[in-house]
C-alpha cells in the first residue's frame, strides 16, 4: 500500500509531545486542575459545532452514575476533511493519552474510539498501538502504578454512514441501531451510551487536550482570537499547489490561507465541507474562526474554471444519500433542493420556485432534528446567493463555461 503522507507544520498540535506525557501528569493534577486548565484554554469542540469542551467535561464529571463513557469521534466523514486521519495515523499518542485524561477527569473507565469504516485500514496499527500502551501500563489497571485509576480503550468500527458523525447518531450506532439522531434534551453528558453519562469528543479536540494539560491553558490561548482560542487543523483540498493538513491559528484569513497553500485564480472557498458555506472572492478577508468563517476543518478551493452549480449538485447528492431519513425537513427537504439544482441545470425553473426552495432551506436549518439537516442547506443557500451571476446568467460556469 502506498504510504500516505501529508505536509506537517504547526505550533500547537504538531508541537513536541512524547507518548504518555499527559498521562504522567495525572499523578500531579487533580480533576479540578485539569478542568481548570481546559477552561482556561477556552478550547471549543473541533468537530464543527464548537461546544466548550470544559463545560462538556464538567457536566459529565458532575453526573452521578455507576458507569460513564468517553467516546472519541473518529467518524470523520465531512467531505474535504482528513485531519483526523493524519492525527490517528501519525499522532495516535495525542488522542489516546487525552482519552485517558478524559476518563480520569469525568470518571469513566472505558473509552471507545468510533472509527469510520472507511478507515479500517488503520485499525490494525491502532490496535497494536493500544497493546503497546497496555504493556507500558498507560492503559489497564492502576495506570502507571501510582494513579489508582484504571482505564482501557476499545475501537469500534462504523460501516459507512456520514450521519454517525453526529454524536447521538454515533451513540445509536454503537448501541447496534440505525444511526438516527436522538431527541435532545437529554444530552449525552446526562444520558448517552447505554443511557449513561457520555462525553463525545472529536479526535482533534482530544489531541488539543493532550497539549493543554501538559503545557497549560494559558499557553494554548496565546494563539487564536478572543472567541476562538488556539490553533486549528485545516484539511485543504481542491485547486491549490499543496493540498494537505495545515495547522493555523484561529483568526487566519482566507486570503492568507490561499497564499500558504499556493492557490491561484481562486473563485470560491467552501468552508466547512458539504455542510459548510461557500465564500466568494469578495469575502476572502473573512477570518477562520467560530465567530466568522467556522469549519470543522474542511477547506475546499475552487478556481475560476469550476462550475459552481456542479459543485452544489455534488453536495446535494451527498445529503440526499447520507441523511438518515427519519425527519421530514432533512429527508424530503434535501431531495427538493437537489431537484431544484437539477431544474436549474436543465434550464427548466422559475425564479419564484428557487426562492421558495431557499426559504425551505432556512426552515431545514431550524426545524431538522439534528445537525445534519440543520446544515445541509447551507451550501444551497450560499452558492445560489453568492454565485447567482454565474448560475443564472451564465457568466462563467453553466454548461458552456467550464
Amino acid at each position: 500500500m502506498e504510504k500516505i503522507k501529508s505536509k506537517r507544520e504547526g505550533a500547537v498540535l504538531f508541537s513536541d509531545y512524547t507518548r504518555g506525557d499527559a498521562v504522567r501528569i495525572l499523578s500531579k493534577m487533580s480533576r479540578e486542575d485539569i478542568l481548570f486548565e481546559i477552561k482556561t484554554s477556552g478550547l471549543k469542540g473541533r468537530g464543527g459545532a464548537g461546544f466548550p469542551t470544559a463545560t462538556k467535561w464538567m457536566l459529565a464529571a458532575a453526573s452521578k452514575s455507576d458507569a460513564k463513557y468517553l467516546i472519541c469521534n473518529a467518524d470523520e466523514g465531512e467531505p474535504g476533511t482528513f485531519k483526523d486521519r493524519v492525527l490517528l495515523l501519525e499522532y495516535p499518542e495525542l488522542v489516546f493519552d487525552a482519552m485517558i485524561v478524559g476518563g480520569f477527569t469525568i470518571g469513566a473507565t472505558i473509552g471507545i474510539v468510533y472509527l469510520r469504516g472507511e478507515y479500517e485500514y488503520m485499525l490494525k496499527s491502532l490496535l497494536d498501538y493500544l497493546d503497546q500502551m497496555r504493556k507500558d501500563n498507560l492503559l489497564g489497571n492502576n495506570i502507571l502504578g501510582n494513579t489508582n485509576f484504571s482505564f482501557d480503550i476499545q475501537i469500534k468500527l462504523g460501516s459507512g454512514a456520514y450521519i454517525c458523525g453526529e454524536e447521538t447518531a454515533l451513540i445509536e450506532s454503537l448501541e447496534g441501531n440505525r444511526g438516527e439522531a436522538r431527541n435532545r434534551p437529554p444530552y449525552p453528558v446526562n444520558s448517552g451510551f447505554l443511557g449513561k453519562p457520555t462525553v463525545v469528543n472529536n479526535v482533534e479536540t482530544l489531541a488539543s487536550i493532550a497539549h493543554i494539560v501538559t503545557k497549560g491553558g494559558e499557553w494554548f490561548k496565546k494563539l487564536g482570537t478572543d472567541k476562538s482560542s488556539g490553533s486549528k487543523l485545516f484539511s485543504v483540498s481542491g485547486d491549490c499547489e499543496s493540498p494537505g493538513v495545515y495547522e493555523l491559528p484561529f483568526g487566519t484569513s482566507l486570503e492568507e490561507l490561499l497564499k500558504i497553500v499556493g492557490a491561484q485564480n481562486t473563485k470560491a472557498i467552501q468552508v466547512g465541507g458539504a455542510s459548510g458555506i461557500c465564500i466568494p472572492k469578495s469575502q476572502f478577508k473573512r477570518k477562520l474562526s467560530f465567530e466568522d468563517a467556522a469549519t470543522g476543518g474542511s477547506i475546499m478551493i475552487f478556481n475560476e474554471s469550476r462550475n459552481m452549480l456542479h459543485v452544489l449538485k455534488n453536495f446535494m447528492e451527498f445529503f440526499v444519500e447520507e441523511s438518515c431519513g427519519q425527519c421530514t425537513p432533512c429527508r424530503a427537504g434535501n431531495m427538493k433542493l437537489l431537484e431544484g439544482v437539477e431544474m436549474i441545470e436543465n434550464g427548466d425553473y422559475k425564479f419564484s420556485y428557487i426562492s421558495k426552495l431557499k426559504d425551505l432551506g432556512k426552515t431545514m436549518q431550524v426545524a431538522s432534528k439534528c445537525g445534519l439537516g440543520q446544515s445541509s442547506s447551507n451550501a444551497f443557500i450560499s452558492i445560489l446567493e453568492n454565485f447567482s451571476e454565474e448560475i443564472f446568467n451564465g457568466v462563467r460556469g453553466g454548461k458552456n463555461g467550464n
Partner: protein
Amino acid sequence: MGTKNSGRAPVSQTGQVIEKPQDPSKIGGSLTIQINEKSVSVPFGTTILEACHQNLVHIPTLCHHPDLCVAGVCRVCVVEVEGFKTLQASCAFPITSAIKIFTTSPKVRKARRHVIDLLLSEHYGECYTCFRNENCELQTLAKEYGVDEFSFGHIQKPKYEIDNSSYSVVRDMNKCVLCKRCVRTCIDMQEVGVLESINRGAETYIGTFLDKPLSEVICIKCGQCINRCPTSALRANDPSDEIWNSIDDPKKHVVIQTAPSPRAAIGEVFGLPAGHSLTLELNTALKRIGFDKVFDTNFTADLTIMEEGTELIQRLYKALVTKEPVYLPQFTSCSPGWVKYLEHFYPEYIGYLSSAKSPQQMFGAVIKTYYAQKAGIDPKDIVTVALMPCSAKKFECNRPEMYDSGFKDVDYGLTTRELGKMIKEAGIKLPEMPKSNFDDPFGEASGAGLIFGATGGVMEAALRTVVEIVTGEKIESIFDNMNVLPVRGFEEVKYAELPISKVGPVPKILQHLVPNWDWLKGVTLKVAVTHGTANAKKVMNDIRNGGKFSECHFIEFMACTGGCLGGGGQPIPTNLEIRKARAKAIYAEDEGLPLRKSHENPNVVKIYEEYFTDGPCGHKAHKLLHTTYTKRGKYIA
C-alpha cells in the same frame, strides 16, 4: 415524560423518561413557564406538548401518539423556545427549567407549513379516492394550515406496489408519511417486530424482513398498526364488495353475527362520542342493508365458555386426580392474533391453548350445520359474515382448519370500520335506527358473552360459570353484583386467586366427565389476564422460566391492548380514554341484561339438548367447536 419506554424500542425513538413528581405542589414539583407570554405552572418533566394541551394551546402533531413512545421525527409540532437557535419538537422536549415557549411565531408557522408541504409532496394520491378521507391526520393538518396548493409538487406516479397479500392488513407505502407509528406499535407495543425502517435518506421506507409480503412474514394480523396509522398507508383487507354481491344474490342466504366490541364502537363512525353501544339499532340497520339474519356472537361466546370451561375442568381432573400429563395453565384461544403470536413465537406451547374455537368460528360452524338443518337451508347457499373489531379474524376465518361444517365456516370477517362504511353507503343513519332484537333460534345471549370484548372478560365469564358449577354457590354471593373486579381493568397483567372451600353437585351436563367435585375442594384456582402481545411475552417468558404464571390454571391472553374493544378493526383514532369508554359501555350493557351467565343461556342449554347431545367437549362438539394449531416458528424462508 408520560411516554412508554419498554427498553425494546429503538433508543432513537424513546425520549427521556423524567419521573414526574408525585405531588406537583411540593417545592420543585412544578415550574412556572411562559407559553405565548402567558405564565403557567406545569409539573416538572412535562413535555412542551403536554404543557400546551393542558393550557388549551393547540399544537399540531403527526408522529406523536399517546399510546407510543416519543419519535420526534415529523417535526410538525415544533415550537420556538427562547434561548435555542433551532425550533424544538414539543413532543420530545421535557420541561426542566423555566422556559419561554412561542407556539405561533412566524418562524414556527412557516416551518410547520413547510413540513406539511414536504409531506404532501411525497404523499401519493388524492383525498377523494382515499378511504381515510375526512379521517386522515395529514388531511387535517393540510386543512388547518390552509394548504391550497402543492408548494413542492406532488408525486404523480405510485412508487410502491400495494401489498395485498395478507387477509388482514393491506400496506400501501405510497401513502406513508414515515411517522414510524407502525414501527413503534409493532416492535415496542406488540413486540412482534414485522415492520422497521429500511434504507436511509430519501430512499427510506417502512418495510418487512427482506421486503417480503405481509403474508410471508411473522405478522400476527392484530392490526394495531392500522389503528395508529395517521393516513391510509395501512388498512384492513376489505371484503365489503363481496358481501354486497352476496346480499344482492337472491340465491344466497346471508347471515351476519355481530360481536360486542363493534357494537360499542360503531357509533364513533357516525360521530357519536366513544362509549355508546348501538347493539339493537345495528340489528335494524343490518336488516335494512339486506342481511337475512342477524345473530349475536355472544351466543357462541357462551358456548365457548361451556367448551373451554369443560376443557379446563378435564385438564384439572387429569392433573389432580388421574395424574396424567396435561398442559396447564390452559391458555384462552379466542384472540386469533394471540394464537398466531404463540404459533410463531412460542410454538412449543401450542398444546397449552384451549382447543375450543373462538366464538366467531364456532358460530360459523353452527350456522352451516345446526342452523342450516333447523332452517332447512342448504349450507352451500349460506354466506356467513362476522362483524368483528378485529383484523386477525379475517385471517382466522381463512385458516385451513376452519372448514369443519364441510364448507368455509365463516366466509367473511368484517371490521367495524368497514360495516360503518356499508351502512353509510346504504344511506342509513345508524344512531337514529329503531331498535330490534336478534334473530332466532339463537336470540339474546348472556352478558358473560358480551364482556368478552374487554380485557379480562373471557376470564370473568368463565369464572361466573365455573365457580357456580363447581361450588354450587351463586357467583353474586362471592362477587358483588356478579362483577369479578379483580380481572377487570387495563393493568398490563392481572392475577387473581380463588380458593375453592366448598363444592356442590356435578350438573347433569358434566356427569359423564367427573363423578364429583371433591377433588377440587381446598384447591386455590389461580388465574391471570393479559392483553397486548408485549405483555403476553412477559407472561410467556415467566412461564418458560417456571415463574408465578407457570403455576396458574387458566390465563386469558388478548393480542390487542384493552382486549377486543381495542382491536385492529375498530374505529380510528384510538387511545386509552376511548378504550376506557368502550369498556364502560360494554360493562354497562352487561349489567343491564337479565341473563349474565353463560350456562344459564337457555339457547345454549337447548343446543346441547338438541345437537351436541354428547355434551361439552363431546365427540360432536369436538368436531365442530374445537380446532388444532400449527407450529409456525419464526424462520422466514
